[in-house]
């Protein structure tokens, strides 16, 4: 039944149609002989038979198709635990709460813990991962202020080197009806559960043919005497039919359909199959918008345990719920639920299905169920949206919402929370400072080392599943594009170094047809000094650090727009790009996710890794189905990228990104770039530390100017995100092979002594440092 793997719906369909046709004929033959239908036979055989055949088709399709429709479950990364890990006791406690671990004084059942200051004792849950199973273990853990000191087996005291918690559930991909269930097979069903169902709901189950005239008469008699409906005469089969196909309306026509379909169901399938379907289908509760179906999931939902492990009083309580999960809700109406549970226990004892003594003891048990949040799902709609899109390339909708796939994603709830908080906090602040109240924002954070997407925020309200700006706000990126221009130059190491001089003087590009492109700097000045008879000479390094438009445009025109586009492709840009010169200054539209991808390639030293949101997919029964592996392609020489990144680091110290120092912890070294589109419509910041790469966009959905530069808007959010993460500072003074540092006179780009007042130290690929030596004597004229 879990056999269906990837897209091949054909096989299933063919099988089903064949069966329907074959059985349909014999149904007709059998039904004709049934005495209960004789009167209808007289009234009109043909229309009735057609109708029965119609119902029969419905019964078979539904029974074989719908009953196994399981939503896909989407999990965040599982938290790895190992000694010396950077993890605080607070973060660990948050993780346990998110997983619904219960705080117990003696935490011996899986999924329970006790905290004593910075120490924890807990019993983990078993879980199946792609690369193997994680056993349930009882452990002791100790934290210092900033890390996990050690892990020990609770019983033996042996130290543990590594383990994983079960992963937090972050979403379910439902069929349209939002039903959820954990399928159980008859072997996993405690016999007492079946006994209780029969005792309470349908005593003659194993002897009737789907409809029980005795039960109906008995119910009629009881109801007549009571003057109201107190007892139902429906068999389990009829109840199943009702759950499967029919609405809740109480009409004779529905009763009639229900009876016919029950008869048809009994005709096609044996009692155990029907009972198994009943146990998996019946509605037993509501968890927000999620409908709890079947005893397997109900057992987890109410008791946090598998069905097999339930005590008699727990089984009785679940059976009590069949009559009305809302009316007998054990969380809101515990007295009522306990009363009915005891009725179930009483009936079991009365009918000799349970030892009266056990029934007595079970009835005395007043303990009920888990608090509601035990199966809470964290809401990260923007990330789930991304997961869905990546999955849709490989799976059909039906597979996704009915095969019960287990999807293991890369989301890191700790990073996600930090990102959400930073976006909300900074947008609120900007609004208080007078920025348009409709200001929106989006952010993506990924792991530099393996390209795993750790957080996605699609808007100011991270719980709102609407327009996902992280993926769909495709906007001009302004100066964020400049690193691509400079990387294109630096790859020609024999021609360009960080000390090359660029011309920032007025530029006029004849576009033909009388049109001219005349880019301006943000401050409408031309920068640089006169040197060797040329005005406005700036160091290539400084042109990027201060984001000079004209110098960049001129450099890009020299390199050629198509060459720069090639670099963008190498960085991972996939959207269509137009070969206009204005592309060089950011007239190119990208989403925050696209930008994260491009800056990831820089952060990873020129190695391109397609960003991933999914690690692996398992089938409902834990079989590995598909893995999304780490993929690495060397796109650029790491030495050229090192030079560029060095300039991007200077951006955050002395350039357009220098305000970051107000948001980051002291001593934290990062690299990044601001971006602002025309008329201040879009405010961008993208950058990276040693371990995290992130992109932030701020703007208005209707594309009106938000009045924010990258530096005043997105930079603040970015800085705030990074300050909340446990992130590694970029290493300083750790030169890769083939790179050397050289003192340069920043006025002329020549080598200089380190005591020259204009000297700056810049990295060079070995053998590319300037040949000339600066005299270091003339005064700055107009810098």
């Amino acid at each position: 039944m879990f056999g269906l793997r990837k897209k091949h719906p054909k096989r299933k369909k063919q099988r089903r149609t064949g069966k329907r046709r074959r059985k349909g004929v014999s149904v007709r033959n059998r039904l004709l002989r049934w005495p209960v239908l004789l009167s209808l036979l007289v009234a009109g055989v043909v229309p009735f038979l057609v109708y029965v055949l119609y119902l029969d088709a419905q019964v078979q399709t539904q029974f074989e198709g719908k009953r196994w429709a399981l939503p896909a479950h989407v999990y965040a990364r599982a938290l790895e635990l190992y000694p010396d890990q950077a993890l605080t006791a607070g973060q660990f406690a948050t993780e346990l709460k998110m997983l619904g671990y219960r705080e117990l004084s003696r935490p011996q059942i899986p999924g329970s813990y006790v905290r004593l200051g910075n120490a924890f004792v807990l019993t983990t849950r078993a879980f199946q991962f792609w690369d193997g199973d994680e056993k349930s273990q009882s452990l002791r853990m100790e934290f210092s202020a900033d890390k996990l000191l050690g892990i020990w087996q609770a019983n033996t005291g042996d130290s543990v080197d590594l383990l994983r918690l079960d992963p937090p559930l972050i979403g379910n991909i439902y069929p349209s009806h939002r039903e959820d269930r954990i399928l159980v097979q008859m072997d996993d069903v405690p016999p007492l559960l079946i006994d209780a169902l029969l005792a309470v709901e349908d005593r003659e189950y194993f002897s009737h043919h789907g409809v029980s005239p005795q039960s109906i008469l008995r119910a009629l008699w009881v109801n007549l005497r009571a003057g109201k409906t107190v007892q139902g005469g429906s068999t389990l089969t009829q109840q199943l039919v009702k759950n499967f196909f029919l609405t809740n309306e109480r009409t004779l026509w529905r009763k009639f359909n229900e009876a016919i379909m029950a008869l048809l169901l009994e005709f096609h399938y044996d009692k155990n199959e029907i009972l198994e379907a009943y146990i998996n289908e019946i509605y037993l509760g509501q968890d927000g918008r999620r409908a709890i179906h079947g005893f397997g999931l109900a057992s987890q939902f109410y008791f946090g345990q598998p069905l097999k492990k339930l005590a008699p009083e727990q089984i009785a309580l679940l059976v009590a719920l069949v009559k009305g999960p809302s009316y007998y809700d054990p969380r809101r109406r515990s007295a009522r639920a306990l009363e009915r549970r005891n009725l179930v226990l009483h009936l079991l004892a009365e009918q000799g299905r349970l030892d009266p003594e056990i029934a007595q003891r079970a009835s005395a048990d007043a303990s009920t169920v888990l608090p509601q949040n035990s199966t809470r799902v964290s809401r990260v709609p923007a990330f789930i949206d991304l997961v869905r899109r990546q999955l849709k390339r490989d799976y059909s909708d039906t597979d996704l919402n009915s095969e019960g796939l287990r999807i293991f994603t890369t989301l890191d709830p700790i990073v996600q929370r930090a990102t959400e908080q930073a976006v909300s906090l900074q947008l609120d602040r900007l609004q208080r400072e007078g920025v348009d109240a409709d200001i929106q924002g989006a952010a993506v954070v990924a792991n530099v080392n393996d390209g795993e997407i750790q957080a996605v925020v699609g808007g100011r309200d991270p719980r709102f599943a609407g327009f996902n700006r992280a993926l769909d706000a495709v906007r001009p990126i302004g100066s964020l594009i400049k690193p691509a221009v400079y990387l294109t130059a630096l790859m020609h190491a024999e021609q360009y170094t960080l000390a090359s001089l660029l011309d920032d003087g007025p530029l006029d590009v004849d576009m033909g047809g009388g049109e001219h492109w005349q880019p301006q700097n943000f401050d409408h000045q031309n920068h640089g000094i006169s040197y060797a008879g040329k005005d406005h000479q700036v160091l290539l390094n400084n042109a990027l650090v201060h984001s000079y438009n004209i110098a960049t445009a001129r450099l890009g025109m020299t390199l050629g727009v198509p060459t720069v586009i090639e670099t963008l492709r190498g960085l991972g840009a996939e959207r269509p790009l137009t070969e206009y010169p204005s592309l060089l200054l950011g007239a190119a539209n990208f989403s925050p996710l696209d930008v994260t991808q491009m800056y990831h390639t820089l952060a990873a030293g020129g190695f391109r890794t397609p960003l991933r949101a999914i690690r692996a997919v398992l089938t409902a029964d834990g079989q590995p189905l598909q893995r999304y592996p780490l993929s690495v392609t060397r796109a650029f020489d790491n030495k050229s990228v090192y030079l560029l990144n060095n300039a991007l680091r200077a951006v955050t110290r002395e350039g357009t990104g220098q305000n970051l120092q107000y948001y980051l912890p002291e001593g934290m070294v990062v690299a990044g770039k601001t971006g602002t589109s025309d008329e201040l419509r879009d405010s961008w910041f993208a950058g990276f530390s040693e371990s995290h790469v992130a992109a932030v966009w701020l703007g208005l959905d209707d594309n009106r100017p938000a009045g924010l530069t990258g530096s005043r808007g997105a930079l603040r959010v970015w800085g705030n995100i990074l300050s909340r993460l446990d992130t590694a500072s970029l290493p300083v003074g750790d030169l890769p092979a083939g790179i050397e540092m050289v003192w340069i006179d920043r006025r002329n780009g020549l080598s200089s002594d380190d005591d020259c007042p204009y000297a700056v130290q810049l990295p060079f690929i070995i053998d590319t440092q300037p040949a000339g030596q600066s005299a270091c004597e003339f005064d700055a004229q107009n810098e």
Partner: protein
Amino acid sequence: MIDTENKNNVYALQMLLALWLAALVLTGCAGGSVVSGLEPASEDMGATQDAGRAVSTLLAKVDTQESQAQWERAAALLERALRIEPRNAELWHRLAKVRLQQGRYGMAESLAQKSNTLAKDNEALKRRNAELIEIARRAVGAG
């Protein structure tokens, strides 16, 4: 489609891979080290000793999976190890080896290059990366 010369190349490549595999198994057995490679085990010890206990635990599992030719599981375990120690050049090299085993030569080469950028002054590892890249390139040329 394959002419004689190409066929010879393929055979040569197969021989090379077989020899390399044998070397891998031998060093693995002889040294008893969790790191196996083209170089004698003694030269490999540094990187392993640098690995933390969590990563060593995973590398032991990687060995098991590799011995059963469960390459994708080995890769998954190595990715896990890399999440714990992302700048451990040895782990990138091991992943490159797994990809080479699977015949994913381009990926193997890139991963070995990535390992090189993190190898610092571990000359032995750099040599092994260079050899791996050489094998991968020849394989691409022969295929």
